[in-house]
């Protein structure tokens, strides 16, 4: 996917704004992903050039961290916590249900590209599990019934 001229400007602005930031790579990657939803390949190349790093180094950083995406995300991203505290109150069953419900049982993205379901390891809501996020909004003490209401609302939106 090519970066449009507008996106290119956004990447240039981000790089420029961090010209005097020590260790600027992560802040730049965060801002590019915040602006575009992911870090396109050409953006990574430009960041590497600007920071005098090899493309391999920048690729290495992007792929090391779970948070960074090299591909555009689905329209709605659901992240379900599967760490121990949430496991103790039924996270495994919840994640299976969420995957099934949103058509993501066999792959991360639903066939229509509307939804993706990802595991996350701790949202810091460990006394009120199971927890998940929908497009970065937190939801705790989740049940299948509560999720059904949220899922229907999402389907109406998209």
């Amino acid at each position, binding site marked *: 996917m090519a970066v449009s001229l507008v996106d290119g400007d956004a990447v240039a602005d981000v790089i420029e704004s961090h010209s005097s930031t020590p260790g600027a790579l*992560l802040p730049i*990657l*965060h801002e590019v992903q915040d602006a575009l939803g992911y870090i396109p390949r050409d953006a990574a190349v430009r960041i590497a050039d600007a920071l005098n790093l090899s493309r391999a180094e920048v690729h290495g950083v992007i792929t090391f*961290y779970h948070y960074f995406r090299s591909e555009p995300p689905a329209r709605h991203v659901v992240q379900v916590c599967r760490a*121990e505290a*949430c496991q103790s109150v039924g996270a495994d069953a919840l994640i299976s249900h969420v995957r099934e419900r949103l058509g993501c049982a066999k792959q991360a993205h639903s066939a229509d590209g509307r939804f993706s379901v990802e595991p*996350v390891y*701790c949202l810091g809501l*460990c*006394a009120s599990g199971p927890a998940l996020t929908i497009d970065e909004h937190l939801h705790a003490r989740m049940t299948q019934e509560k999720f059904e209401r949220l899922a229907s609302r999402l389907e109406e939106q998209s």
Partner: protein
Amino acid sequence: MKEVTVYVPKDSAALAVGADEVAAALQVQCATRGLPLNVVRNGSRGLLWLEPLVEVATPGGRVAYGPVTPDDVPGLLDAGFLEGAPHALRQGAVESIPYLASQERLTFARMGVNDPLSISDYEALDGFAGLRRAATLDASAIIEEVTNSGLRGRGGAAFPTGIKWKTVRLAEGPQKYVVCNADEGDSGTFSDRMTMEGDPFVLIEGMAITALAVGATEGYIYVRSEYPHAIASMNEAIARAEAAGFLGDNVAGSGEAFRLSVRKAAGAYVCGEETAMLESIEGKRGIVRSKPPLPALQGLFGQPTAINNVITFASVPIILSRGAQFYRDYGVGRSRGTLPLQLAGNIKYGGLIEKAFGVTLRQLIYEYGGGTRSGRPVKAVQVGGPLGAYVPESQWDVPLDYEAYAAMGAAVGHGGIVVHDDTADLSKLARYAMEYCAIESCGKCTPCRIGSTRGVEVIDRITAGGGAVSSQSEQVELLRSLCDTMLNGSLCALGAMIPYPVLSALNHYPEDFRIVEPAHPPVAS
């Protein structure tokens, strides 16, 4: 009619169960009824099963109602909750709720009381008193105070804080740093998150005191990307503290400069290891460094760096304002002061419990927690996050103390306690520990990188059963040997401590691994 102040928490744990919707419903309903209302968004008291816990300021003190849903709001107003009237959700005077009243809140003294981002509210409750005093002391006197308090690193390693600071103070370097490790990735922990969201100035104050003590002028707070509300809260608090002269060119009139900024992490658990965190702040993959050199001597960008956890820094202001002796009077043995414990998982009354060291798991699980949320018997309790041991019932009366826990092959860690009921399968949890280690390993050292994957396979072979008894016991032997290699051969705590949950599960819950006992036990030779 007089305006009534109502407190609705904005802590993530309250937002995740609808606090914003409750605040909005209150505004709308009160506007419709012509009731003047002042909504303050406070931090959370840490009574998390009651969130959203709404408090009403009455002439007789603050009265709590919870857990409140938006649908409850009309009924609450009908019942007269703005005057503190009775209602099914009424919990009474908030500070008299036994869960809260019986705690020893030093670090969390201000938690949930006021608007976390108000400097005047912070100062009204002793805020910045520690920094003001530190600004009048010389560096060695600050370090002596912290050393004498007995404070040890609250991130899990429990290293004496004053000694670490002294090393940084005495190190040579053109630039020194203070770095806060707020990469709170352990399942079952949320005290760092609560502090950053609910009392961010206490962290800033603790870091500024550290900067004066070690001679640093730059600081970073490395916060998980999973904590967007904490990041927003810290950024705003830093801007306000700088505007008020507690950060910047002249910290609290000391004549010293200290600048602080937030760095957003990117979802790698291993970056909670201090040297991997430094690599990450420098803009690299979070690969663990070999030690030595210690970060205190060659840390961030190769310069002397004081690294501590959020709770360690947040414990410093009260030590400076009330004195070392006040703090060290709490606790037992060599574990001085208090620890904010986090009661989580399958627990009826989960939340934040700050107590002096010496409290027992049994007290926490039953007296505070009320047993499991499911109502089933408690089977296992993991203390100290994914790298902590599963503690069986026979050890629930051991006082929580760094040395006592180490002696039984467990770790206090960051004070996270995750409760599991009797439906938990400990072989599954042990397998998960190895699997998690494989996902999160930075890959630098072999025991962690390869050992974790082999660990999953060996546990699968043990639990599959079906084979001869001898082959299963060989696999158990292999798992123990693998754990020994990881424990002694890994570069950092990730690989070296994953054996804690695995071996504790195996030792205390062998039936979950479907271990077949030999028909005739081998005769001892």
